[in-house]
C-alpha cells in the first residue's frame, strides 16, 4: 500500500465513510478506506452492548449500498461487515491519518504508522468523538497507561493513578476508590471543568482521605519498577507495584509506585486535523462547523466532509452523504435525499414542486437566513413547517411559552402587545425572537392577516444556527433591540425614534454569578435584562440582603436610574448566564425629559420596585433562602418541585405517583438533592427557560409545550447528550421494554435488545389534573413553583423561620 495512489481516499470507517466506500467499491472506483481503529465503525462499536440503534429521522429515505434499519447494534455491525466484502471495499485498519497535504488531484496523507497515501479526492468522515488526549511523557506508551475504564468493579487492591480533573476522571476515580487505592493527579487546583455534583463528590472523597490527590501535578515519566526499589516501600498496597512514575508538584518532584494509570485528559477534536489543511470553519467556537458547498465540498477543492463532523449527527444522514458525494464525483447529478420531504412541505406553496427554486427564494427572501450556507438552510427547512393560518387566527398568544420562531413568507401578521396599535409584520420579517432570547412566555399575541403563509422553525434548530452563524446572531440581535425598545420601553414612539435609539444600545453578556455593578459605582448605564436573571442586594451591616429579583424583560435598578443619584445604592449580580441591553444613562435621562409617557411608565416601574424592596429589606433572612434557591437553578425554572420539610412525612407518595403514571419509573428522586432552610429540592426537572438539555440532541427529540414544559419524544436515540448537558442531573437513561408483536409474544422470542432512552419529568402532560407528584402529596409539602415565585417563597420561609 506504500505510496499507492487512489482516485478516492476516504478517512474514517463510520457509517459515512463506509457508505461512501461501498458506493465507490460497487462502481469500481479506485479507492481506499482508512480506519484508525482495528474494526469498522468505531463509534458504533462503543455503544452499549445490544443497544437498539434507531434510524432517525424516520422520514428520510436511506440511500446507500450498505444496509441500515433500526435494530440491534450487533446486527447492524454484522450487516456492515458483510457489506464491506460484498461491495469490495478496500478497507485498511490501524491507519490513523495524522496529516494531509496537497490539493485536488494530488493529496497526500500520512498515517501514524508512517505510511503515506496519495489520492485525487478525499472524503473526511472522522466523526466527532475524537481521540483521547495521550500522555506524551517518556514511558507514556507503556501498557499500564489506559485511556478508558471498562469496569471499575473488575479491579481490586491495586494502586491506580487517575490523571485529569474533568467529569470522566472524577467518576472513574470515585468508582475505583471502592476497592483500590486511588491517586488523582490534577494539573490545576480545583475542579472547574466538572459538573458541580461531581466536584463536590470528589472534594469530599479527598478530604475524607478516600482518594489521595496532588494538585498542580504533572506526570514527568513512567517506567517499570525494578524489584528492589519496591522492597523499601511501606505497608500500603503499592508494595510490589510493577510501575513507578515521577510527577512534578509545587513542592518538587515525587515518585509514585502504582499498578495502572487511567488518563482521562479529554479528547482531541478532529477539527485540528481538518483545519490544518486549510478547511475554513464558520466561526472559532468549539462546535463550529466547516464551510461546505451543497455537495459537501469544503473550502479546499476536492476535499469533502460528511457525517457528524459536517454537523449531521445521525447515522442515516452520514450514510446518505457518503453515497451522494461519490455519485457527485462520478459525475452524476443527485437530488439530495431530502428532496421529496421538502417537496411535500412546500406543496402548499405556489410552484412548490420546484424545491430548488423555493429553497433559493427562501434563502434570498428571509434576511435572517441570507448569510447561511445552502446546506444549513436545507437542514433547517427539514425540521421547519410551512403553515397557513386563517385570517384572524392566533399564531401564538401572549403568556404562552414558545418553542419555535416564525418567518413571514407572505401576507401579514399583527403583533399585539398590551396597549397601542398592533405592529404589522410583512414578508421577510421575523416573529417570536423575544421569547427565543428570553426563554420566557411571549410578551405579545400574534394574529394572522389575510393570505398569511409562515415558516415555523423550532428553537433547537435556530439555537444551533445562533451558535455557529454570526450573521443569524447579528440579525436576531438587531430585531430584538428594535422590538424590545418598542414593546417594553416606548410603545408609543415612532419607528424613527426607536431606530435612532437602537443605534445607541449595547449588548452585555454576564457569566453566572458575575457582578454587574455594585453599591457606590457611578450610574453609567440603564439596563434591560434580555435573558437570565439578576439579583439586587444591599449591604446591611455584615451581610448582603437581597431586595429584588429581575427576570428577563425587566429593567435593572430603574429606581436608581430615576432617583437623580449619581451612584448605585444596590449590588447587581447575575444568577444564571445573563444577557442585558443598555443605553448610557445620560441619553436615558434626556429621553425621559423629552417623553412624558415614558416618564410616567418609568414612574410606575419605580413604585413597584420600591414596594418590593421594602418588603424584602424587612426580612434579611429571606435573602439567604433566596440565594440558596437561586444557586440550585431556580432562577431559570418554569416549574420546579419544592418540598417543605416541615410538612413532609416521608411517605414517598410523590415518587409512587410518578412511577405509577410513568411506566413504573419514577422521574423524581425525593430523597436526593439539596436541602436548606427546610426547603428541599428533589432531583427533578426544573423545566428551564433555556433548557440546557436541548442543546446537541441529534434527532431534536426534546421540545417544549406552550405551558413551558420540556419533554422528550419517542425519537430519542439514547445517545446520552442531554444527560450530560443537564446541570441539575435530572435526566436518567432508562431501559425501556420494546414493544413485542403478538407473534413474538406467542413464540416467546425475547427481544435481545436494550432500548435505553432518556427519561425525565414531563409535568404529567398526559394527565388531566396536572403533575401527579403534587396531587398525591397528602400533607401539602410538595408544590411546584416558577422562577417568579422564588422571591415570595423565600419571604414566606423567612417568616416561618423567624
Amino acid at each position, binding site marked *: 500500500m506504500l505510496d499507492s495512489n487512489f482516485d478516492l481516499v476516504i478517512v474514517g470507517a463510520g457509517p459515512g465513510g463506509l457508505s461512501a466506500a461501498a458506493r465507490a467499491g460497487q462502481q469500481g472506483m479506485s479507492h481506499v478506506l482508512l480506519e484508525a481503529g482495528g474494526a469498522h465503525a468505531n463509534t458504533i462499536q462503543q455503544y452499549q452492548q445490544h443497544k437498539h440503534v434507531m434510524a432517525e429521522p424516520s422520514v428520510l429515505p436511506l440511500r446507500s449500498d450498505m444496509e441500515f434499519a433500526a435494530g440491534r447494534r450487533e446486527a447492524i455491525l454484522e450487516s456492515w461487515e458483510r457489506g464491506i466484502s460484498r461491495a469490495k471495499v478496500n478497507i485498511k485498519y490501524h491507519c490513523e491519518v495524522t496529516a494531509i497535504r496537497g490539493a485536488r488531484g494530488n493529496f497526500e496523507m500520512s498515517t501514524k504508522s508512517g505510511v503515506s497515501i496519495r489520492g485525487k479526492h478525499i472524503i473526511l468522515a472522522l466523526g466527532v468523538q475524537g481521540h483521547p488526549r495521550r500522555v506524551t511523557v517518556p514511558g507514556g506508551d507503556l501498557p499500564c497507561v489506559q485511556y478508558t475504564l471498562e469496569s471499575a468493579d473488575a479491579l481490586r487492591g491495586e494502586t491506580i493513578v487517575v490523571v485529569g480533573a474533568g467529569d470522566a476522571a472524577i467518576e472513574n476515580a470515585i468508582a475505583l476508590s471502592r476497592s483500590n487505592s486511588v491517586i488523582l493527579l490534577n494539573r490545576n487546583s480545583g475542579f472547574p471543568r466538572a459538573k458541580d455534583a461531581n466536584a463536590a463528590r470528589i472534594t469530599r472523597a479527598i478530604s475524607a482521605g478516600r482518594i489521595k490527590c496532588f494538585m498542580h501535578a504533572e506526570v514527568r515519566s513512567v517506567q517499570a519498577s525494578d524489584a528492589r526499589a519496591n522492597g523499601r516501600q511501606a505497608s500500603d498496597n503499592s508494595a510490589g507495584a510493577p510501575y513507578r512514575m515521577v510527577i512534578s508538584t509545587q513542592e518538587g518532584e515525587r515518585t509514585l509506585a502504582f499498578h495502572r494509570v487511567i488518563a482521562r485528559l479529554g479528547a482531541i477534536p478532529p477539527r485540528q486535523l481538518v483545519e490544518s489543511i486549510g478547511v475554513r470553519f464558520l466561526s472559532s467556537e468549539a462546535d463550529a462547523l466547516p464551510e461546505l458547498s451543497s455537495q459537501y465540498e469544503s473550502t479546499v477543492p476536492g476535499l469533502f466532509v460528511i457525517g457528524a463532523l459536517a454537523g449531521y449527527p445521525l447515522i442515516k444522514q452520514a450514510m446518505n452523504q457518503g453515497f451522494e458525494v461519490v455519485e457527485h464525483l462520478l459525475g452524476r447529478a443527485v437530488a439530495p435525499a431530502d428532496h421529496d420531504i421538502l417537496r411535500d412541505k412546500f406543496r402548499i406553496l405556489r410552484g412548490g414542486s420546484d424545491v430548488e427554486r423555493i429553497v433559493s427564494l427562501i434563502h434570498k427572501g428571509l434576511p435572517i437566513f441570507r448569510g447561511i450556507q445552502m446546506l444549513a438552510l436545507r437542514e433547517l427547512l427539514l425540521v421547519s413547517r410551512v403553515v397557513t393560518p386563517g385570517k384572524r387566527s392566533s399564531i401564538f398568544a401572549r403568556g404562552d411559552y414558545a418553542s419555535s420562531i416564525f418567518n413571514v413568507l407572505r401576507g401579514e401578521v399583527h403583533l399585539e402587545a398590551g396597549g397601542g396599535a398592533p405592529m404589522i409584520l410583512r414578508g421577510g420579517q421575523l416573529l417570536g425572537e423575544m421569547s427565543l432570547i428570553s426563554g420566557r412566555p411571549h410578551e405579545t399575541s400574534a394574529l394572522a392577516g389575510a393570505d398569511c403563509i409562515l415558516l415555523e422553525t423550532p428553537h433547537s434548530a435556530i439555537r444551533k444556527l445562533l451558535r455557529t452563524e454570526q450573521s443569524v446572531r447579528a440579525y436576531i440581535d438587531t430585531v430584538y433591540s428594535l422590538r424590545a425598545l418598542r414593546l417594553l420601553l416606548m410603545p408609543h414612539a415612532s419607528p424613527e425614534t426607536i431606530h435612532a435609539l437602537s443605534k445607541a444600545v449595547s449588548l452585555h453578556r454576564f457569566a453566572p454569578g458575575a457582578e454587574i455593578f455594585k453599591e457606590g459605582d457611578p450610574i453609567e448605564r440603564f439596563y434591560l435584562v434580555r435573558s437570565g436573571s439578576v439579583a439586587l442586594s444591599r449591604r446591611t451591616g455584615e451581610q448582603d440582603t437581597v431586595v429584588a429579583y429581575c427576570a428577563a424583560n425587566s429593567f435593572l435598578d430603574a429606581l436608581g436610574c430615576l432617583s437623580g443619584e449619581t451612584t448605585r445604592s444596590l449590588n447587581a449580580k447575575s444568577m444564571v448566564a445573563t444577557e442585558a441591553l443598555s443605553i448610557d444613562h445620560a441619553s436615558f435621562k434626556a429621553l425621559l425629559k423629552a417623553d412624558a409617557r415614558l416618564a410616567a411608565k418609568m414612574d410606575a416601574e419605580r413604585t413597584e420596585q420600591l414596594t418590593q424592596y421594602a418588603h424584602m429589606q424587612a426580612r434579611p433572612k429571606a435573602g439567604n433562602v433566596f440565594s440558596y434557591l437561586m444557586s440550585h437553578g431556580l432562577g431559570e425554572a418554569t416549574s420546579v418541585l419544592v418540598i417543605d420539610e416541615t410538612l413532609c412525612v416521608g411517605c414517598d407518595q410523590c415518587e409512587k405517583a410518578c412511577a405509577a403514571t410513568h411506566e413504573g419509573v419514577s422521574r423524581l428522586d425525593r430523597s436526593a438533592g439539596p436541602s436548606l432552610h427546610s426547603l428541599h429540592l428533589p432531583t427533578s426537572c426544573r423545566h428551564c427557560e433555556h433548557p440546557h438539555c436541548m442543546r446537541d440532541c441529534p434527532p431534536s427529540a426534546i421540545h417544549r409545550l406552550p405551558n413551558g414544559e420540556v419533554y422528550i419524544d419517542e425519537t430519542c436515540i439514547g445517545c446520552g447528550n442531554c444527560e450530560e448537558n443537564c446541570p441539575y442531573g435530572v435526566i436518567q437513561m432508562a431501559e425501556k421494554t420494546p414493544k413485542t408483536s403478538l407473534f413474538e409474544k406467542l413464540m416467546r422470542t425475547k427481544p435481545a435488545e436494550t432500548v435505553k432512552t432518556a427519561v425525565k419529568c414531563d409535568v404529567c402532560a398526559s394527565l388531566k389534573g396536572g403533575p401527579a407528584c403534587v396531587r398525591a402529596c397528602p400533607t*401539602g409539602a410538595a408544590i411546584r413553583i416558577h422562577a417568579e415565585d422564588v422571591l415570595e417563597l423565600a419571604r414566606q420561609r423567612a417568616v416561618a423561620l423567624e
Partner: protein
Amino acid sequence: MHQSFINFRHYRYGLIAGVASLITLVTYLLDRPRVPPNGGTWLGYTLGTIAALLVIFLALFGIRKRSFRSTIGTAIGWLSAHVYLGLAALLIATLHSGMHFGRNVHTVAYVLMCLVTLSGCWGVYAYVSFPGAMMQQRGNLRRSEFLRQIAELDSSSLELAESISPQMTQLLAEGARRTDLGGGNLWKQLRSRDESTLLLGIGSAPRRSSLVSNANQRALIRTLAEIRPGRSSSEVALSSVQKLLELAGSKAVLLQRLRRETQFAALLRIWLFLHVPLCCALLAALCIHVVTVFLYW
C-alpha cells in the same frame, strides 16, 4: 405557597365540619323526642345515616390515596376533609347513640369508631409535629448523607489503624462491621436501641476473645482510652490513637442522630398499622350494626 392539610384552603373543611357539628348539636339539644334520645328516633336515624355515610367517605380516602391518576380533588384536600370530617363523624355518631351503651354489637361499633378516631388524632399529631422535629435534629443531612459520613469515618479510622498495628486494624474493622445502623424491622426501628457490638481480645487465643456491647461506641472508646504508651508504641502511634478516639466520638454522635431519625420515621408510619385495621374492623361492625337494626325493626 405551601399549605398544610390543617389550613388547606383557609381551613375549608374545618369550617364545614365545624358548622355541621354545630347544627347537629343544636338540633340534638332542641329535639324533644317522646322517648329518651336514642338511635331509634327520627333524629337518631338521620344522624346514624349521616355518620355511616361519613365513615364510608372517610374510608374512601384509602382508595383515593392510591389512585394516582384520579382527578377527583387532590390528596391534600382529601386528607384535610378526612381529618375534619372524621372528628365531626365521631360527634355525630355519639349524638346518634344518645349515650345508650351496652354489651352489644352497637357499642362495639361505637368503641371501634372512637379507637379509629383516637389513632387518627395521634396520626395528625405525628404529621404536624414530627417532620419539623426531625428536621431540627438532623439538620440538613439526609439519611444517605448520615450513612456516607459514617462510612467515611470508618474508612478514615481504618486507615489510621493500619498505620498503628494489625491488631488495631482488626479491632476497628470488626467494630465497623458490627455497627448497628438502626435499620431492621419496625420494632427495632421504634425501640431505637444501639445493638452494636465489639470483639475484644483479638489476636489472643480464640476462646479468650469476647463479644461485648458497643452501644454508643462506648466499648471502643474505652478500649482505645486504655492504651498506654508501651514499649512498642511510639509518639506517632499515641497521637493516632487520640485521633481514633475523636473519630469514634463523632461516629457515636452520628449514629445517635441517625437512630433518632429512623425512630421518627417509624413513628410516622406505625400508627397506620393501627388505624387501617381498626378502620376495617369498624366497617365490619358498622355493617352488622346496620343489618341488626333493620332486622329487629
